[in-house]
């Protein structure tokens, strides 16, 4: 399984990478929107876990952009705030921060909720 994790905080990225370490999941990380788009265009990802509020982007356009780059990927939005209904409709799953490693695995393992 190929997973892209996007968050503007390095410490958060580190924790989630460590969660998935040792499993069969291959993890890539991006800490800004540009790097995220570059990675998303290059590789094929099964799932993208992204923070909602990334600098220099609007949440909805960012998520839409990711979906356009990786139509196959399951989009999991994680946020420390309440997620607006627009975003909820766009995302395949919502992961509220903070979350445990068990929650992360269960979201990743659950089937894709909707067709892109």
């Amino acid at each position, binding site marked *: 399984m190929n997973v892209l994790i996007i968050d503007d*905080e390095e*410490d*958060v990225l*580190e*924790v*989630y990478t*460590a*969660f998935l370490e040792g499993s069969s999941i291959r993890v890539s990380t991006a800490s800004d929107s540009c790097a995220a788009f570059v990675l998303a265009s290059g590789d094929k990802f099964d799932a993208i876990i992204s923070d909602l*509020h990334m*600098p*220099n*982007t*609007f949440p909805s356009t960012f998520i839409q952009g990711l979906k356009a780059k990786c139509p196959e990927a399951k989009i999991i939005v994680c*946020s*420390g*705030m*309440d997620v607006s209904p627009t975003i909820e409709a766009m995302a395949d799953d919502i992961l*509220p*921060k*903070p*979350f*445990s*490693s068990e929650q992360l695995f269960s979201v990743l393992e659950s089937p894709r909720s909707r067709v892109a």
Partner: protein
Amino acid sequence: MIIHEARKLHLAIRCLIAVCVVLLSLLVRISIKDHGGDIAPYFFLLPVIGISALFLGSFPGSLTAIIGSAATEYAIIHSLHHSSIQPDDLYRPICVILYALLMGWLGKNHADNMINLHKSHRLFESVVDSLPLMVFLKRLPDFKFEVFNRAGEELTGFPRAALLGKNDLDFFPRDQAEAFMKADMNVIQSPARFLDIPEEPIDTAKKGTRILHTVKVAISVENGSPTHLLGISEDITDIREQQKKIAAGKEEAAVLRAQLFHAEKLAAIGTMTATVAHEINNPLAVILGNVDLLVKDPKDLATRLEKIRISTERIRSVVGSLKAFSRKNSETTSPQDLHKVFAEVSALSEVLAKKSYSTLDISYPEKDLRVLAREGHIQQVLLNLVSNACDAVKSSMNKCIRISCSTTEKSVVISVADSGSGIPEEIREKIWEPFFTTKGEAGTGLGLATVRRLVEDMHGRASVESTLGNTVFYVELPRCQ
């Protein structure tokens, strides 16, 4: 009034005397005729002069004139009758004319005096009656009313005819009447002979109980011990009620204002909460994640613990910022360390800036720079301004917010600048008004009104300068030496 009565009596006595004069004059004529005398037609002048003097002149003056005229007439006629001088001689008419002139002059003087006296009585009466205040005069020692004006009649509801010659005990409830008379006694006995009673109740005949403001003065007709007591009362019942209403209104307005600004604070907290949730949840994610990892495998213990510590610090600083809102507003100003204030505000400001995707630049003031302010108020002011700045830059390409401060000898000017589209000239003064908002439903219209109120409460000044791409809000506060 008593004066009125006296004048009637005076007039009656004069009429009586006038009748007596005519009778006396007739008696003289009859007695002359009895002695075979000749009555010249102009001798009728004398009683006529006497009577006119009576009506025009003063009372004793006219009486003298009448008796004088009668006696002179009799003397002249009698002497002419027994002398060789004939009535046709010049002597007789000259005497008559001289006498007539003298009487006329006396009569005129008396008449002028009388008219003046009469006029001043009338003037006194109409002045007292036209006064909008209740005026009364009580005669000592029994405090019976001697003068009572129209305003007094209207106020008490008692006709003056009933009041004159009576005292308070005849009209007012015993306890009130006794209070009035006790005050009267105090006036007379006090060296100042004056008493100001700011409030006293009075039971009126038609208007129920009214509140009076009364001034009482003891006066004496001649210099010496007081003979009368003058009272002037104003009905202040309506004024008192209005004052009470105004006071109640002011109190209500103050309560409403406090509630309004409290509501603003709550609204600000509401919008802040969502942002704060994010700001706390991120470090929480780091803490929880690291703990999770350590539980499974305690490798990298020191690194992970350090990350936990840093995240905990971050949460602490956000919570510290929130304290600025929860602090009970103090009423007095005290020296506040501006560096500390900036530090407290920075965490939340950064959250707000991040949410609006703008860069925040804070230039910290030198350490130990103190301003005179109310605890927590500068924080609230700054967060309101930063929150506004974040909204202002939303539609700009370049999103910058800068917090800085400059000092003068006596004051410190804190500025919050943004790169937003600016505030149009025509609304620049309106933005400070409560409920003025450009944000539609999203704004309460209380943010800047609160800023101005809080700053002015701290004896400071809030102002704004704005051009396209550069809007600066200034908060000037007195510097602590």
